[in-house]
């Protein structure tokens, strides 16, 4: 998937296979079945082009990324996914207040 996004535009199984083979020993059928899997899971769209399929990502990496972040940043209630955030973000005045007090706490001891 990373490859297909980096490639941009549409590509056939043959295109990707040639690209990958330059780097490592990989079977054509492996690439084909992987791309077929991604198509069936809704990550890739494909259209027939002669004998082969031409594949293209359904959405860009940025679109998926944005969707994930929307889900992650949504206040509870919007999403039911269980995400354990490291820490919630604060806004400007809150941040300033926290920093001031922590600096006092850290610096003000013998």
């Amino acid at each position: 998937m990373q490859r297909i996004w980096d490639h941009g535009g549409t590509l056939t199984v043959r295109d990707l296979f040639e690209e990958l083979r330059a780097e490592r020993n990989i079977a054509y059928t492996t690439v084909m079945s992987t791309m077929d899997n991604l198509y069936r899971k809704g990550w890739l769209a494909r259209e027939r082009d002669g004998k082969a399929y031409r594949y293209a990502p359904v959405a860009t990496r940025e679109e998926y990324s944005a969707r994930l972040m929307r889900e992650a940043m949504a206040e509870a209630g919007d999403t039911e996914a269980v995400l354990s955030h490291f820490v919630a973000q604060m806004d400007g005045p809150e941040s300033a207040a926290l920093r001031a007090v922590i600096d006092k706490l850290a610096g003000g001891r013998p």
Partner: protein
Amino acid sequence: MITALALLGYAACAAWWAPALLAPLTRRGASVRAGLAAWLAAMASVLVSAAVAIESSFRTVAADWPQLTQALCRSVAGGACTPAVYRSALYEGGVTALAATLALLSAVALWRYGRRVQRSRAQTRSHARTALLVGRALTDPASGIAGARAVMLDDPRPAAYCVAGRPAAIVVTSGALTVLDPPQLRAVLAHERAHLAHGHHVLATVTRALAAALPVPLFTRGAAEVARLAEMSADDTAARANGRPPLAAALIAIATGARYPSTRIAGAGHLGAGHPGPDYPDAGHPGAGHPGAGYQGTGHLSTSLPRGALAATACAVPDRVERLLRPASRASRTACTLALTLTLTALAAAPPALTLLAAR
């Protein structure tokens, strides 16, 4: 019927008042494990009592059913309809109505709970899958990551979170990477791995679904408190592995969205940089209950912040930073654990004790 009423009364009291008892004891995370156990025991105790009460009221109705129908029949037929029979019919009718209501309520609650758990599990897994495919692999600055895979997503807002799934994912935004130095990033990753290793997502799923199905104080407040304690528990694990200063600094950096050097707090007090202090042998029970002996406490960090300056969700940050910077003394930790263990025992013993007393 007496048993059922006693248990139901207990369940209602505990559901409304247990939070008031538990919240002050677990607030500062002086005893994380005992705190988690106490909250979960309170929830289990209420659920079991309510279930037993409902089951027992059902049995009462079933046993008295012939009597009830006979009484109804007589009252319709007139004839032998004495006031005593009439009153009895009213009583039986009331019992039946109560049992039916309870059955309906519990069915609705169960259904809502199940649907909620299922939906949240599906969304969580799909989020993890997508994150792993979309994110760029993040290589741990020090070593390879065992277990969950960590990925980086492009987003200017600093954030880090983990999401359970098969496999699980740890997501760090590019915004977070710009405000963290390598030891701090290691601390963040250790914190998230601790969540996954300890199965905190299961606790979150169950308690949040309970809160959605039965929105009474014990469950709504309990879900929030369990989440807070899980954060503190993960903090403890991460602090044990990498030391407290980088973790505390990482908390501040991500919360405020600006770099915060670990050395700024590493020099504070007795904190040794990079390794747990000598007074931190039992990482299961650290924290700050009260500023113990030897601390020149200037009041709690969270209370010295201006009231209302912090949103509810952000309130955990000062508490967590404070317990990393100023862990409680051993004595106050022990006291807190003891109090929580007593509470836990009382909560666990209440339903069987009530059943025995009422059955006499």
